[in-house]
């Protein structure tokens, strides 16, 4: 490993690139361990473990990069971790059993899915106060916001819909039926498509956010695997909008998808029970959390190869990476 780092350094210096003063940090929520593992994504090493509340899952950094937000479902709150001190400094009134959440582009509003109450809670971030809620279908989970910040999308796992919500009126404007147990949503960076993964249905629905029609259903087929084992969850789409990575759960693979043709171009073998994924800000690496094997796989995005696995805490679930 040291040789590889020296080699990397050598290449970097050779190219006249200065290394950032602070490396990017990846924060991995360990659902069973009740911890966050911090990974230095330059060294690709775990550097710290932070104790948090019970059952940490959904994780994101605030837009200013000062805090890590982590939903600790069994404590019915979202904890705020100061990225400088690595300490839990505050909590947010998320409502019961938070799992996934999303921020608007300004970072002033946070939208949280409350699975037990069929609601989405709206939180004022500067005031850290609850603003209101929106009633959605049974067991809301996946949360996303359009790049223009105008449309919020929540998926409900038992109703099997993507609910499109106008952020100004907080009213549902459309409900789109998708396959069973929709768990995660991602907008294409240009806002032209919404991707919804259906964990039990085994598909990704591509929805036109303007007409609210499903325009394409992406399916997966892996030789030697029964269809029940293919359970798409986390989705990451590159900034140029060309390539998408979809985590396939107990299939232990990440599908690489050409977003133009919506065809799978490659399956990458990662750790066991892959949940979620996140890019480093330079999109050099994609990190995946592997729930059963207690590790994070590192995918080299350019070569589409899995180059490393990093041991983390017990049952890793979510991952978020600092942008500076």
């Amino acid at each position, binding site marked *: 490993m040291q040789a590889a780092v020296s080699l990397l350094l050598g290449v970097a210096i050779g190219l006249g690139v200065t290394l950032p003063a602070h490396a990017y940090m990846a924060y991995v929520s360990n659902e069973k361990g009740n911890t966050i593992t911090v990974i230095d994504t330059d060294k690709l090493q775990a550097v710290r473990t932070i104790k948090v509340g019970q059952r940490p899952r959904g994780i994101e950094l605030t837009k200013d990069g000062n805090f890590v937000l982590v939903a600790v479902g069994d404590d019915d709150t979202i904890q705020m971790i100061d990225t400088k001190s690595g300490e839990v400094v505050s909590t947010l009134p998320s409502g019961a*059993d938070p799992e996934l959440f999303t921020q608007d582009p300004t970072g002033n509003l946070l939208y949280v899915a409350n*699975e*037990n109450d*069929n609601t989405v809670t709206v939180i004022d971030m500067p005031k850290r106060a609850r603003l209101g809620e929106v009633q959605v*279908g*049974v*067991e809301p989970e996946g949360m996303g916001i359009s790049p223009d910040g105008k449309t919020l999308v929540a998926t*409900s*796992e*038992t*109703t*099997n*819909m993507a*609910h499109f919500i106008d952020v100004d009126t907080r009213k*549902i404007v459309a*409900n789109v*039926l998708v*396959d*069973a*147990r929709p768990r995660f949503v991602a907008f294409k960076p240009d806002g032209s498509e919404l991707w919804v993964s259906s*964990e*039990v*249905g*085994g598909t990704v629905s591509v929805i036109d956010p303007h007409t609210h029609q499903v325009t394409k259903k992406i399916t997966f087929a892996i030789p030697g695997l*029964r*269809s*029940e*084992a293919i*359970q798409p969850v986390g989705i990451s789409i590159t900034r140029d909008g060309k390539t998408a990575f979809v985590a396939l759960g107990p299939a232990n693979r990440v599908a690489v998808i050409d977003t133009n043709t919506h065809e799978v171009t490659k399956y990458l073998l990662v750790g066991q029970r892959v949940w979620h994924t996140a890019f480093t800000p330079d999109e050099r690496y994609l990190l995946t959390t592997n729930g059963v094997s207690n590790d994070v796989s590192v995918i080299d995005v350019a070569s589409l190869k899995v180059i490393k696995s990093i041991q983390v805490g017990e049952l890793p679930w979510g991952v978020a990476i600092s942008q500076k």
Partner: protein
Amino acid sequence: MKFGARSVMLRCKKQPASLRHDGMTSTQMTHSLDHVDLFGASLTVARTLIAAAVVFLTIVAAGATEPLEFKIGYLRVEKPRVAISLVAVPAENNGVAGAQAAINDNNTTGKFLDQHFTLDDVKLKEGEDPAAAAAALADRGVSIVLADLPPDALLRAADAGHARGQVFFNVGAPDERLRENDCRANVIHTAPSRAMLADALAQYLVWKQWKRWFLVVGSHEPDKLYADALRRAATRFGAKIVGEKVFEDTGGSRRSDTGVVQVQRQIPVFTQQLPAYDVLVAADESEVFAGYLPYRTWDPRPVAGSAGLVPTSWDASNDQWGATQMQDRFIREFKRPMTALDMQAWTAMRMIGESAAHKRVNDPKALLEFIKSADFALAAFKGQKLTLRDWNLQLRQPILLTDGRTIVSVSPQEGFLHQFSELDTLGYDRSESKCKLQ
């Protein structure tokens, strides 16, 4: 031809009476046309009328002035509510509460689709005819019925309902014959069969290398049928039944003021001098003795089957795959834990809701077609999609193995392979099935 039935009746009063019938099949439709002809109106006029009505109804449905109504029946019988364990005594609303929970879920979804579901709960008294009950439901416009009935009663209801276009969901009966020689084209099974339960247990015991079983069988018919399934499972997966013994039900209550003094002495004696075995497997659906076996056997051995490690479709301790939400909302509403029967009814009602959401019609035939199709997949907190076996309309499902406190394991076990679905390693597979759907 089954749009919002109520709005039809309000707005189309001039149609022939038979056209308003909710459970009409295509043969009945032809029949009613002849009927119209007899009364003087020409066939063409009748056809035009129907076509106009269809167009009108489509507009009404699209206008969404009233939600599309789904009236779902629930047929059950008075059952003795007995269990060895006080904490396992079934509630009066066992099963029907699961159906109600799914009705609530369907209605939350229905808000977005202009669909509304209601439950028509019918409890048959001793000696009441299930066929008449099914017909009465049909008269009230109920064309889909969840049934928690013994096998003969279920067949009577289903065969009576067949002519009225009714579809039944067997949520309670584990009997193999309902899926085999006595299978029906209008009966879907969400309850796992005895063979599925036995296979699920056998796979785990074999994986655990507990291959020598001693089988204790109750003296009632269901116990014997469960024992048959366990013997078949042992043969299938390489376990050996080293001996068998019948536990006679001599009657008597499950609880007494004198307490468990006698049980503590009876069970060790009953299990004394058995051939060497790894696990004591009990077939006691009648709740007569199995609950007394654990910790009381002569030899220190684990117990499985009807007590100890139990194969089941659901347990209140299941908290995997998002099940916590299901358990929470059930307890909040019904103030008691969710049972396997509740889950089997919930699953049936969700299958109805899911197909209704996709097909947007209240037509049991269309919904059944969708449920049987490759497009159908149900999420039911089992870690994978549930689909229907098209050869006998049995729902494919993983089986939980529970000690009543935690989920010990979930079958199918790793390594039990199948060319189509690992779930088909549980129960009778396509090639073994004697079912001819009709």
